[in-house]
């Protein structure tokens, strides 16, 4: 009897069946980790190929080892925190204005047919304009670079929030209004107890999209005049040929973007009223 006959062999099918028997959370974690490992592998292979090619070896610092070492240096010296703080404060300011203007506008668009009919074409027109296209106007209209960037971010965030909110309002069951009126609700109670909980998940879904767009717009927007923020850090690293730092900032952008999206998804789940 040979060794191969004695050793129990696990076929791919059996392994797959075993994997499917694992708890859902464990399967999900294994899949997510696998995805990240594949990304790292592709990056690592890319780094080797870049280093091996004499035409591209100048960019070898984009490889994972150099990048993580630069990232560690940025964390150790603490300079990354100030960069992150600058960018996040701009994102939060832009998002704040997006919510303050977008949610009430979305309620009007969703609730009043006439308002929807009047606003539809202009809003669709404005929505299609890239937020970065407002850059020259922002530079002219605002005194500081920071204000101009916040304006660009607000322009990026407002439309997903308006349309998300309007969609939520349109989905409200008209009977909910009738029942609330019948139970003696006043205007504020109607808003607080009926409209806001009913649309919360749609508003947060709009905010999630808005965060995605704003985060993408942030980097080119921070090329504008300012001397802080992740966009500035990328531009600065490129100018000083510090490609490892550039790649480290890109990693930071990805991680923070993921965390912001995670927060938005958590809020959507928290305020979702659909029972699975």
């Amino acid at each position, binding site marked *: 009897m040979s060794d191969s006959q004695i050793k129990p062999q696990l076929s791919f099918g059996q392994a797959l069946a075993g994997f499917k028997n694992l708890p859902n959370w464990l399967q999900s974690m294994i899949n997510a980790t696998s995805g990240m490992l594949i990304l790292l592998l592709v990056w690592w292979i890319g780094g080797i190929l870049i280093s091996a090619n004499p035409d591209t070896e100048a960019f070898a610092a984009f490889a994972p080892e150099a990048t993580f070492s630069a990232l560690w240096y940025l964390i150790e010296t603490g300079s990354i925190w100030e960069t992150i703080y600058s960018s996040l404060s701009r994102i939060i300011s832009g998002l704040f204005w997006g919510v303050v203007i977008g949610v009430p506008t979305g309620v009007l668009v969703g609730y009043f047919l006439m308002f929807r009919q009047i606003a539809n074409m202009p809003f669709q027109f404005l929505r299609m304009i890239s937020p970065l296209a407002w850059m020259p106007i922002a530079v002219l209209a605002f005194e500081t670079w920071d204000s101009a960037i916040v304006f660009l971010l607000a322009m990026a965030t407002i439309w997903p929030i308006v349309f998300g909110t309007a969609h939520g309002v349109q989905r409200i*069951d008209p*009977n*909910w209004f*009738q*029942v*609330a*009126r*019948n*139970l*003696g*609700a*006043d205007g504020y*109670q109607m808003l607080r*107890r*009926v409209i806001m*909980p*009913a649309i919360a998940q749609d508003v947060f879904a709009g905010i999630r999209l808005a965060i995605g767009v704003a985060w993408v717009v942030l980097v080119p927007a921070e090329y504008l005049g300012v001397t802080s923020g992740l966009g500035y850090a990328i531009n600065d690293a490129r100018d000083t040929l510090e490609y490892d730092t550039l790649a480290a900032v890109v990693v930071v952008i990805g991680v923070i973007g993921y965390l912001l999206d995670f927060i938005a998804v958590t809020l959507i789940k928290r*305020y979702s*009223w*659909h*029972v699975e």
Partner: protein
Amino acid sequence: MTTKASSVWISDLSHTFKKQTKPTLKNINLTIPKGQLTALIGRSGCGKSTLLQMLAGLLIPSDGAVRINAHTVTKPSAKWNMMFQKPSLYPWMTVRENAALGLVFSGTYKAKQDRVETLLEMVGLAEHKDKNVQQLSGGQQQRVALARSLATEPEILLLDEPFSALDAFTRTQLQNEVAEICHNQGITMVMVTHDIDEAVAMADKVVIMSQNPGEIVGEMEVNLTYPRDRSVDEFISLKEKLFNEFEKIDIAKQNSINEDNL
């Protein structure tokens, strides 16, 4: 737990909707004494739901008035509370939160939260009070709507075909329960239905309405005690009498419309 009942007066009420030339309701005069259970019965489109919405203050009549305890009804109030065909519960709330909503709106929830517990027990949902309402069956959801309506201690309970979407068994059970609750607590009830069985099972008086325009064309007293046994001869003969009355009036009305159109 008893609730103060009240009287309803509907005088010379007519209503024509905007962009319509013919009235939906014409010369409605009706008095409903305290604690009486009244069923409005008629074909679809005869305006009985419109009339009920006027009693609830959700619609204002073009002419005439609805008075409850000498107050002219001009807006909705938790004191004249309506249960709709769909329970229309708020899906982001639990059973208890839904039932307590009227008290939350009036700012009396803290003082009266025991009432919500008692009502949920009365409608058989005490053990489900912390569940989300989406986890309940259709019949259970309608029970939550009933508890929600009763929590505000309404003087009048208005029912707009609230059981029509339920299965026959649950419907019968809820019809009996609601009629008994209203009867025991002295709540004046006005119900819209096109189900003759439901009308006889629940009401003290059945008001027959015709359409084009909606008018009151007949009334029938139902002198049966609660709980009502639907299998007894008296119940069956009252149903037949109401059906015959309804058919007779309906044919007469259709003939008069046809003559008018000639």
